[in-house]
């Protein structure tokens, strides 16, 4: 079965400032994951 990377990407939000809005945290991780894909 193929490994799923969702959890280790989600865990990256823990290193972002806690006062950063959740949607911005999601966007930062999302952009990072997209950049790695491209």
């Amino acid at each position, binding site marked *: 079965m*193929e*490994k799923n*990377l969702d959890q*280790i990407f989600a865990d*990256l939000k823990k290193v972002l400032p806690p006062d950063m809005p959740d949607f911005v945290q999601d966007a*930062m991780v*999302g952009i990072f*994951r997209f950049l790695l894909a491209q």
Partner: protein
Amino acid sequence: MEATLTTEALYNQRLARVEGAMNHTKTDRIPVLVMAETWVLAYAGKKIQDIQNDPQKELPCFEKMWKEIPMDVSFTGYFAREPKMYHSLNTEPYFYSKDGTTIQSREFAYMQAEDYPAIINDTKNYFYNKNLLIKYPALNLSYPQDAEALQKSFFEFLGVAQKIMGNPVIAKEKWGMPIIGGSAYVNAFDTLMDFFRGLPQMFSDLRRRPQDVLDACEALLPILIDSLFIMPIPPFPYILMPVHAPTYLTRAQFEKFFWPSFKKAHEEINKRGAKVFMAMEGCWDHVLDCLTDLPKDSIIAQVEATDIFKAKDIIGKDIGIAGGMPFALLKYGTKQECIDHAKKVIDHCAPGGGYIFTTDRVALAGNDFNVENLIAVNEFVQNYK
């Protein structure tokens, strides 16, 4: 007159010239764009090793250019790709050149032909999961080694993000300098070619798997658009769209494989209120007329080897044109030869608006051109009526 303006007024004046070129409206004069990336290092007397451990050291190199070179708008204000972001993942798609002057890339595409059904039918999972496992060996390690490698890469990314968000603000507030290139969009065909199949395999696919190529481009399109709008896109800077493939395609291949997903992307971007600065890499002479189908006043097309006079005649009423000054002439010509050429280009491209004066390529290395010639032509253009 610019020296008497406040920084804010200077920025607004320069931006108005750029927006005039996008919208084909009358402006006080033609805007001058300087397209430079790692060239700014050489111009500042630096090499990559002087700045590689502190991304913030890039900014003073750009600031020297903004201060000393006559210009209205800058292509960028940071280096977008950070090679160190990939080191902890045990890969090197981007690397510093041996002479320490530029950041280079190598082909980094590992998708096998038998993976077409997966990228077509399970696109998101393939794009964001399997693709990453193929490209980055460190992500195949056991936990927590995989997470630790990813986190190191993420820290490097955050340094890049800080530059991307911060440097344009400094350019605006300290130097009154607009940065034209914002969020980047690589179209579906180029994405499939550059980041998944690779150029030789892609051209084999066009003959052996034509429907798979079409279906994969269609499948990738929503992911690419969604990722572009993951954060709100302001009216300026424009979406930076480098386009690689058309110069390699016949007209028939362009129309069949490239155009459908490319046109849909432009229409969607336009519908969402964003505008595009498109770097038309190579020569597009054979397909220029197709571009008249794209939304009017929504694109500035920077031409490289395309005939700029032909581009102005065919697409210039609908699409802004940027370019006209060849690196080769700036490097080997005299000042007068460069100025004479600039005058010829402006006389043809400026009437009717929709024109930005700039070079045919992005400057990367210090010897790409003779900077004294660039200063001379930019000064000429800024004073030419």
